[in-house]
Every structure is written in structure tokens, then in C-alpha cells.
């Protein structure tokens, strides 16, 4: 037998120690209360799903999926996100009962990694899915809920950057000569390679008006001073009108200070057909979360009612939110054998007062003083015989 690896864990896996656990519980409760207040119902789906059903449809790249094989030879995956399983269960069952569905989750997801630290292979995600409402109000609700949720955790320095796949593809189509060129530019934008974008535009040998427009667009669209600026580049279309509506709603609700528009925002997933957004906060080098409208994913599961939602990474949330102080309520009750009954009454009394009582016999301890040092309040029931 090989020796056991006590300290080692599979790459990217983390232990959650008691102190952190308590803080994560607080995050979970805060989030859960806020989402329940808005009529979102929490849901749980299996940890393991079929690769063909969920793995292939997921936005997560194939290489980062944890795969296993069941006893019938089917390939299974550890769920890499929650959106795809929820899309599966709503389209197959829940939509028949109620529409629209407002669902929420707080769950661990798995992404295998072969790289350095700072990228856990298992982490908690919290988010919502609003399925069966194609109106602009559904998208506004999702963005507003994301903002309120982040604020509920005491995070003040954050930004939600919103784009629209339709606006972008309209511009790329109008100013290039072929779908191939548009696709190439889109790919560079997914990677946010602006240098590559410029080089590609020059290499395409487009008419000067087109290439100039593209280059000017890329410069302006990254940080739009106002929605009107973009209208210079795009011919009137539904996507643009949609975004103008969305902005108006968010302004009416008083959320404009938290949002910014970026019409170069693009996702590697073709499911994001409409509005999409990313959430950034000071304090973490990685985005807090993202979201958007994914009607395409629902179509993949055979439904055309539309869906929108977002997910936040709890591990990054924890990094950027103010330090959580968990109240220390712990009391140690130590007892000798002859005073067990008396000590038990005291422990019960303290628990009724809301204390967390550790009930410990002297004779079970190796070092009594060491344990006592761990507690601020100690009640001792020493032996009367001694």
C-alpha cells in the first residue's frame, strides 16, 4: 500500500476551516434572505450530471470539466456551473407548473485546473435565473438584484459593465466584408486583445471608411460617456433600442451610478444572444461574477421562452467584502464525574440563553489549561471529593 497523503489534496481543492465556515454561512444567509424577499425560490440539483446533457451545453470549456464514467459506460461530469442544470430541470419540468420561474441557488461547482494557486477547482456560486420572461424588465430585474446583493454584503466599490451581443454583431457585420472577418474580430474581443483587433482591421484591407469607423468605435465603445455616442456607429436596430429601454429603466430605479456600458463586451458562448454583463469590484484581480440573457441555452433544451440570470463567485465575494466579525458566544463547561448532573443543568441554562456551550469532562482531557485558553468564559465544576 502506498503511504497516505494527509496534507495533500487534489489540485485546486480547499479545506473550509471552522472560522471560515461561519463566515460563509453568514454570506449564505444574507444572500438567501435578500433573494427570498424578491420571490426567488431556492433549488438544488445533483452534483453529478450527464456529460451529454449538461457538460456539452455548459459555457465552461471541455478541458476544465471533471469527468467520470458510470457503471453503464455513460460519461458524467461534476457540475461546472448551475445555469445549465437549472435550464435542464426548468425546461423538462418546472415550466409546466409555473411561468415565469424565479429560481436561486447557492451551490458548489467544479472546474478542474492545471495551473497555479488562486484558482480553486471547487467553489461556491450564488445566483439567480429568471426563466420564461423575455421582457426588458426581466433583464433589469436581474441587474438590479445583482447590485442589491453586492451592496447587501457591504461592498461599495464595484461596477457592472453591460453590453449586448446584438449591438456588437451588428457593428462587426456592417463594417467588415465577410462573416469570417466579423468572427475573427469577435474572437479577439472575447480575449480583449485590442492590439490584435487593430492589427486585424489593418490586415483585412477594408475600405478606409469602414476601418476608420471600426477603430474609432473600439476606442469609444470601451468607456461610453453616454448611450448617444454609440448611435453614431450603429444603424437603428432592435438591440440598440432594447438597451436604451434598459438604461431608462435602470435610471428610473436609481441604479445608474453602478453601471457602465461597453459594447465591445463579448462572450465565448454563443448562447448569450442578448444583454450580457460582468461584475467587477476593487480588491480582487478577477471578476466577481457575470450574467446575461441566455435564450440560446434554453433553445438548446427545446424551449423558446427565454431566460436571464447571473452568478456570483462566493470565494471572490469573500475576498472583497469588509471583514466579517463572527460573534464569539462560546462558553466552556468543565465537569468532574461527581458533578455531571449539576454541570448539565448549567450547560442547558446557558444554551437557552443562546450561548454555544462546549460540555467537556475533565477526565477526557490531556491538557486542561490548553483547552481553557481557547475560551473567554469557562464554568468549572471541580470534584468535591478532592
Amino acid at each position: 500500500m502506498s503511504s497516505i497523503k494527509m496534507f495533500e489534496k487534489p489540485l485546486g481543492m480547499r479545506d473550509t476551516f471552522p472560522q471560515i465556515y461561519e463566515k460563509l454561512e453568514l454570506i449564505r444567509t444574507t444572500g438567501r434572505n435578500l433573494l427570498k424577499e424578491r420571490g426567488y425560490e431556492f433549488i438544488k440539483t445533483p452534483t453529478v450530471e450527464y456529460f451529454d446533457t449538461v457538460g456539452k451545453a455548459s459555457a465552461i470549456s471541455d478541458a476544465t470539466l471533471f469527468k467520470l464514467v458510470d457503471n453503464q459506460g455513460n460519461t458524467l461530469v461534476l457540475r461546472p456551473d448551475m445555469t445549465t442544470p437549472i435550464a435542464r430541470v426548468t425546461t423538462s419540468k418546472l415550466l409546466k407548473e409555473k411561468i415565469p420561474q424565479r429560481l436561486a441557488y447557492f451551490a458548489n461547482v467544479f472546474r478542474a485546473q492545471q495551473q497555479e494557486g488562486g484558482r480553486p477547482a471547487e467553489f461556491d456560486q450564488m445566483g439567480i435565473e429568471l426563466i420564461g420572461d423575455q421582457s426588458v424588465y426581466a433583464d433589469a430585474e436581474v441587474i438590479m438584484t445583482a447590485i442589491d446583493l453586492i451592496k447587501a454584503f457591504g461592498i461599495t466599490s464595484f461596477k457592472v459593465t453591460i453590453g449586448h451581443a446584438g449591438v456588437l454583431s451588428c457593428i462587426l457585420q456592417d463594417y467588415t466584408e465577410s462573416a469570417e472577418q466579423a468572427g475573427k474580430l469577435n474572437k479577439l474581443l472575447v480575449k480583449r486583445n485590442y492590439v490584435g483587433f487593430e492589427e486585424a482591421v489593418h490586415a483585412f484591407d477594408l475600405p478606409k471608411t469602414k476601418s476608420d469607423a471600426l477603430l474609432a468605435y473600439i476606442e469609444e465603445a470601451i468607456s461610453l460617456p453616454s448611450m448617444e455616442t454609440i448611435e453614431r456607429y450603429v444603424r437603428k436596430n432592435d438591440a440598440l433600442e432594447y438597451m436604451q429601454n434598459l438604461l431608462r429603466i435602470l435610471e428610473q430605479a436609481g441604479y445608474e451610478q453602478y453601471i457602465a456600458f461597453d459594447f465591445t463586451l463579448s462572450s465565448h458562448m454563443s448562447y448569450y444572444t442578448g444583454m450580457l454583463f460582468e461584475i467587477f469590484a476593487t480588491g480582487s484581480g478577477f471578476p466577481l461574477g457575470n450574467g446575461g440573457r441566455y435564450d440560446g441555452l434554453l433553445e438548446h433544451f427545446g424551449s423558446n421562452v427565454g431566460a436571464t440570470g447571473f452568478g456570483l463567485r462566493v470565494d471572490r465575494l469573500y475576498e472583497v467584502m469588509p471583514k466579517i466579525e463572527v460573534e464569539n458566544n462560546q462558553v466552556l463547561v468543565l465537569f468532574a464525574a461527581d458533578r455531571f448532573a449539576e454541570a448539565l443543568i448549567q450547560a442547558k441554562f446557558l444554551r437557552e440563553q443562546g450561548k454555544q456551550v462546549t460540555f467537556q469532562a475533565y477526565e477526557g482531557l490531556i491538557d486542561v489549561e490548553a483547552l481553557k485558553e481557547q475560551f473567554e468564559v469557562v464554568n468549572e465544576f471541580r470534584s468535591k471529593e478532592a
Partner: protein
Amino acid sequence: MTELTIAMPKGRIFEEAYEMLIQAGFNLPEEVEMSRKLMIEIPEEKIRFILAKPMDVPVYVEHGVADIGIAGKDVLLEQRRTVHELLDLKISECYIASAGLPNTKLSEIAPRIATKYPNIAMKYYKGIGEQVEIIELNGSIELAPMIGLADRIVDIVSTGRTLAENGLVEYEQIAEVSSRLIANPVSYRMKSERIQDLVTRLKTCVK
């Protein structure tokens, strides 16, 4: 004004890039003491430079401990980290090429390629349909074909002098390389005004 942390590669690129920042109108001291210091604070501009190994600049930027950085395209191609590539500074221009002893062909069974850039080399040979095996070295790559460790090397070429002095010839050019301004995705949003301002000002100095 928010604080901006810039990761810079030590050595010649630092000097060239620093010169560009001065040209762009940043109020930086003419002479910086480049002794063993790893961090340089410029309180007047609220800028902090961190000096790193060229290969490490994208690491600092990806993790967000540096907001922006200056990195060679070779490093970016090799590491494929999640950073935004904002501007081609057109300094330290060179290219990546394959080289080997003159008039040689790749060996018939499992040709070997020695390189500092295993990912770039692998991608290139896959792309042209050659099955090769990669041997990773950390420096003096030119040695490999001379003593029979590898059939070809994949490395940076700027003047070609090192190759010539070691009796090697260039075979194929693989990619153009120059220094790029990169940004962390979160800093890019949260400090967008400062970063945009820097990009616009630097753009005018790019030759």
C-alpha cells in the same frame, strides 16, 4: 486620483518604457536608481512601479496586484494569461523563429525542439503538421543543436548575431514580437479613467 501600480520588466525595456512615459508627459524623475530596489514610488503621479522578471509581469497583472504592466508578446503568447492587451508600444521589436544547423532536415523519428517557449513551439509545429517533441531549456538555447540535443531551436531573434556566431541558421519565422501594454480586467474597469488616459497619452509617443 487613484493609485496605479505598473509592473515593469527589469533592464532595457524598463528604460525604454520609462522614457516613453516621460515623453507622454508624466512627471517622473529623470534618473531612477535601479540598484536592487524592487519597488519605486512616484508620489507626484500616484504611480508605483514594481520591477519583475519579464516572464513574471503577466502573472502580477493577471492576479491584479499590478493594474497594468509591460510585457513582451512572446511572454503573452507563451503563457496565455487572462489580461487585456491594450497597446503595442513598438519597443524591443524582434521575432520568434526556428533555427538549426545549416542544411539539416528534421530527423525522421520524433524530431526534437529545444526552446524556452514550449507552448509557442508546440502550437507552431502542430499548426504545420509536424510531430515533434519539446525539450524545455532556460537559456543558451543555441547550444542544443550544436551538441546534438535537438534538431531545431525556437527562440527570440533580434539581430541574428548570436545565431550566426554559433553557426546556426534561421529556418522559419513564427511570430512578431514587441512590448505590449497589458491590463488586469478588474483594474481596467475600476480604474478605467486613469488607464484610458495613460493609453491615450502613450499612443501619441508610439513610433
